[in-house]
């Protein structure tokens, strides 16, 4: 069973805010379990998304059955710009990891996990977590018992247990504390589950393991009425990262023990057994405020500092490396970079950092190297003043400030930056690469601008491009239509006559129009008759030659024209015949023309 510490942190997850809220603001809270036992850890992942610049950290609400152990923001960002896509979106996304430890049995409703955004309180979807009483495992933390007592109660024997030995019970934040995990066993010991006592055994610390000597021999130690063989399983230095009480709850560690079964022959046997650890606590004090120097950035330990440059005579516009080395005892991986003095004649282009730590005499030692790539902007003798490193020394329990030596540079004129015929490449390595330009096939610059001064826009943005694409399609389409029409005119006589009917009738009517004014009646009415009958023949594809009026009437009726049209047409033709052969009234020619055109238009609608 997993248990965790009961660190009461004065963490108030509340806070400053600004901005406005829109509909996209969400908060989601996801627990890693819905049922835990007393003493177990509960991990809640919280994600806040909003489309504004600022939002408060989430508030968990009242915790009745749980104790807050740790709450960290694991991801943060206030603006995401998606480029080259469909526009940009501005959002903030924050993720938190909250670690709770179950203290009481019961059911906890998490229904007030909230975040404050733009004056509005957004609440996460509620969930319940059931806390059960422990079964069979370690006791509740409030019932502190030694490992051997627990073992005796559970198994009725105390052949083996692990004693977690802290060098001291009180330390400052980020101060190193030695811890040793000692296995007490009346049997032999073969091996153990190395993952069981890992970096998370003590919550809220950074752990640096100390390598133990190979082939170490167990010590014998008498405890009460038993003599134990004592094996050291692991040794480490803990660096607490926050103040409060850090507690490692009792846990079981799988250990492979060896023993002999006595009989006629003594037989060696091995068994994996669960070996309990004892409860261990460390009280972590915050760093004192008194005497804290201005340059202090949180470094704890005992350190020295030195600064050096790789080139004391750089040229203006050239580059050199300022290497600041911090070394000493403490968690060097947590050493903050020293603040460089603000020098207007120096341009800072990039930084590197490199950490190297080792253990000696049960302490962590090491060095942190901070490299600053700098470029001078002014010529002449220049000085980099001493660089300060402030730290808290736990040994003396006070703040100290170390300074590097000042560095004097002779900054050269810019024209001396490049060696004649040489190229100096400053890469990631300390040593630059020098290239003899005359020894390689490196082409000279071009002497004249060729082509447009500015890059032309892509062709697909121009009208002519799309015109060239569309015009052939239109030409092809038109060609197909024309050729098909030609083909049909040749092969389909009815279609050809119908297509030409309107054109022919208009030509004939023009002849009638000419005959209307001044022509004789026979010519005029003959032209009208030819026009109408010819139109009907072509348009309706009729063989009118030799037809009587009755036959023509029958043919017209068979084409289903509008009611009365066939009758009107036959009557009109008979009238025309009468005027043509029996004389006419002079005023009727205009009416005849009009009536003929109307009839033609009406017949054009008939297919």
């Amino acid at each position, binding site marked *: 069973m997993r248990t965790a510490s009961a660190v009461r942190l004065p963490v108030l997850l509340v806070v400053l805010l600004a901005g406005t809220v829109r509909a996209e603001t969400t908060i989601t809270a996801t627990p890693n379990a819905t049922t835990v036992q007393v003493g177990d850890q509960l991990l809640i992942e919280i994600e806040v998304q909003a489309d504004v610049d600022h939002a408060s950290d989430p508030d968990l609400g009242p915790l009745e059955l749980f104790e807050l152990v740790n709450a960290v923001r694991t991801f943060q960002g206030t603006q995401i710009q998606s480029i080259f896509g469909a526009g940009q979106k501005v959002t903030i996304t924050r993720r938190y990891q909250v670690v709770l430890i179950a203290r009481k049995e019961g059911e906890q409703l998490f229904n007030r996990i909230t975040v404050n955004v733009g004056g509005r309180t957004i609440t996460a979807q509620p969930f319940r977590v059931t806390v059960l009483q422990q079964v069979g495992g370690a006791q509740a933390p409030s019932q502190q018992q030694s490992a051997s007592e627990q073992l005796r109660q559970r198994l009725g024997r105390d052949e083996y247990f692990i004693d977690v030995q802290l060098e001291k019970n009180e330390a400052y934040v980020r101060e190193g504390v030695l811890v040793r995990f000692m296995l007490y066993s009346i049997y032999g010991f073969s091996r153990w589950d190395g993952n069981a006592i890992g970096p998370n055994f003590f919550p809220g610390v950074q752990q640096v393991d100390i390598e133990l000597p190979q082939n170490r021999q167990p010590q014998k130690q008498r405890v009460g009425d038993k003599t134990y063989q004592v094996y050291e399983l692991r040794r480490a230095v803990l660096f607490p990262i926050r103040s409060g009480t850090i507690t490692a709850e009792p846990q079981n560690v799988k250990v492979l023990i060896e023993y002999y079964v006595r009989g006629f022959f003594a037989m060696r046997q091995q068994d994996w057994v669960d070996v309990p650890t004892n409860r261990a606590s460390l009280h972590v004090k915050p760093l004192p405020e008194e005497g804290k120097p201005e340059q202090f950035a949180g470094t704890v330990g005992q350190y020295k500092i030195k600064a050096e440059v790789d080139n004391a005579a750089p040229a203006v516009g050239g580059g050199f490396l300022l290497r600041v080395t911090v070394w000493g005892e403490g968690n060097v991986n947590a050493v903050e970079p020293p603040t460089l003095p603000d020098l207007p004649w120096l341009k800072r*282009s990039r930084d*590197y950092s490199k950490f190297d730590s080792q253990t000696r005499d049960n302490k962590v030692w090491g060095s942190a190297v901070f490299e600053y790539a700098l*470029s001078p902007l002014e010529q002449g003798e220049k000085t980099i003043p001493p660089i300060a490193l402030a730290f808290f020394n736990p040994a003396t329990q006070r703040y100290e400030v170390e300074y590097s030596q000042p560095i004097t540079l002779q900054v050269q004129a*810019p024209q001396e930056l490049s060696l004649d015929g040489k*190229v100096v490449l400053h*890469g990631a390595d300390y040593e630059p690469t020098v290239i003899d330009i005359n020894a390689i096939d490196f082409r000279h*610059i*071009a002497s004249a601008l060729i082509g447009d001064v500015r890059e032309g826009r892509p062709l697909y943005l121009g009208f002519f491009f799309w015109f060239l694409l569309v015009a052939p399609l239109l030409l092809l389409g038109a060609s197909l239509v024309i050729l098909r029409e030609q083909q049909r005119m040749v092969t389909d006589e009815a279609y050809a006559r119908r297509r030409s009917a309107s054109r022919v009738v208009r030509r004939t009517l023009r002849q009638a129009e000419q005959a209307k004014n001044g022509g004789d009646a026979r010519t005029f009415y003959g032209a009208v008759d030819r026009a109408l009958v010819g139109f009907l023949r072509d348009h309706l594809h009729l063989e009118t030659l030799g037809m009587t009026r009755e036959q023509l009437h029958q043919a017209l009726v068979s084409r289903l024209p509008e009611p009365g049209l066939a009758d009107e047409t036959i009557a009109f033709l008979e009238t025309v015949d009468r005027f043509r052969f029996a004389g006419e009234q002079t005023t009727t020619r205009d009416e005849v023309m009009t009536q003929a055109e109307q009839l033609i238009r009406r017949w054009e609608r008939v297919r």
Partner: protein
Amino acid sequence: MSKTSWLVPLVLLAGTTAVAAPPAVVQELFDRGNAAYDARRFAEAIQHYETLIHKHDVSNGVLFYNLGNAYFRNGDLGRAVLNYRRALRLLPRDRNVRQNLAVVLKYHEDADTARSESGDLWQALVSVRRRYTLNELLGAWVSIYLILAAALLLRLWLGQVGGVRVVFPYVLWIAVAGLVVVGLGVAGTFAEQRLRQEAVIVAPAAPIRTGPGNDYPAPFSMSAGTVVRLLEVYNRQESGETYAKIELPNGFEGWTPLEWVGLVDWKAEQRLSARYVPANAPPITAGD
């Protein structure tokens, strides 16, 4: 400079304008840059060339080539690669640009990664495609399209003529094949230049972090001149940092400060600079 642009007439046919003489101020600055280069004052030459790009909006292949030369002679391998790449977009068959880019890449510390781009048949085809600009490929595609259309029209109107009937099938299939091949080239170039944002690491050793900020671990770093692909840009308002998410040649993704990455598409870089770089900061492409 190479004059083997056999596709240029086709491009002109498709609507490009005639080449005009550069304005006097442009020519003057260009000449001053060249003079500074010849006098081995490479930083000064860079300044003149960059002024042409940033203040006079000049984007010319020759200018980028000269700028790449000046950066390399000034010891800035990353920006040399960047500007050679820009020059190649405008002068893809220019032998001088290709030669100098090849020379510079020999001194690239992650040369193995850079060279892993080429090697197989696909990369050979890509290499052929990259010898032409997008407009050249578009002009070629339109020309083939017009030839195909003309062949179809001839077939429609003069299909009875014996010569047309015999030649037409060959012209048809050759033109269709040409349309497909050149069309793929157009699509590939368009995707490479307009959709994928090709970029170059310009810092001597840019740490590649797992997230957008100094508080994320940097498992490794990439040296100047590494060609990457820009995926997105992330601005942290609390710290004022702007980070670029990049894809490395081996497919890995990571974050590095935006100012340590140069975009081959200089117009896109100018837009990014205007959006993210504070007004009092030096320009991204200024020689560091």
